[in-house]
């Protein structure tokens, strides 16, 4: 009985967990550092790439996906796949609307306090923001 169990439960050494956590902290520092360097439009891609690498470390080692039954990895991947499909199809719509219609960003409420030229002069701004 106990011999069978050692085959089914993969007990990782403490060292693995500590190394993974150290790697996660190092990559957190890297992603903060990189965000202050102008990569000319590639900042978002770099941030997502680093986050994805960290997510792989967490799921493969902390969540044991690398060692457990592959059906758990399958269920997890299906979830990520459908979030990807969901976002990609939505973006096809919203990013291309300007090709057909004349769409520009405009205030939802033009008379909102945040769009007033000089909020300090306005009594409405005084009432709403309190401190000014």
């Amino acid at each position, binding site marked *: *009985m106990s011999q069978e169990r050692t085959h089914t439960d993969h007990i990782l050494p403490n060292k693995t967990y500590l190394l993974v956590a150290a790697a996660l902290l190092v990559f957190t520092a890297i992603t903060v550092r990189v965000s202050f360097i102008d990569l000319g439009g590639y900042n978002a891609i770099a941030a997502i790439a680093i986050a994805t690498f960290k997510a792989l470390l967490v799921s493969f080692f902390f*969540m044991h996906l690398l060692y457990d039954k592959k059906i*758990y990895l399958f269920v997890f991947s299906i979830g990520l796949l459908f*979030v990807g499909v969901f976002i990609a199809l939505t973006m096809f719509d919203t990013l291309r609307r300007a090709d057909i219609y004349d769409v520009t*960003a405009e205030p939802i409420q033009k008379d909102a306090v*945040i769009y007033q030229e000089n909020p300090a002069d306005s009594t409405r701004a005084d009432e709403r923001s309190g401190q000014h």
Partner: protein
Amino acid sequence: MSLAHNHPAYLAHHFSDMEQQKASAKLGMWIFLLTEILLFGGLFCAYAVFRSWNPQMFLNAHKHLNVILGTVNTAVLISSSLTMALAIRSLQVDKKRPAIIFLLLTLAFAATFLVIKYFEYAHKIHLGQLPGKFYTYTGIEGTNPHIFFSIYFAMTGLHGLHILVGMIVISWVLVNTVKDKYSSEYYTPVENAGLYWHLVDLIWIYLFPLLYLIG
């Protein structure tokens, strides 16, 4: 051992053995985690849409988030994931005391995260950097800056709620560990609580760069 005839209390009647029971419980947990990914997926989609519509506003608004507090909170959550993993490992090798200590540490890290989040929220509420019609702050250039804070509060708020639920679940498995209910033979509830906790960490790993570290 006469397990075949007189099965242990933690093995339910409708499972033939512990391995089958554990595999079923974990599959159920992963399917629940899948629904959690889809739940947050909706918010990530909203983020993608509004950021693509207002790239400059997002850039201006995100500068009002505190990168240092965000970084500290990321480190706190990673540490809590580590202690959670170590707590499960301690149970796997039948070390009850270290398991209790690691679970307590996980709870402490979770509480630290929420305290830091409280200070961040309190500062934003004070300045009026609030979602939708409650937004009164005037220092951000760009169209509709309140949208950024709507998304910020929706995403971090739902995530914070998950931290709170995680703390309740971890407290529950902690009490049961103290009561000697778990051993290397049976620790599935702790393992599933761990899976949930790591997912909450995983979502923050994406929230942090997307909200605090834009370009």
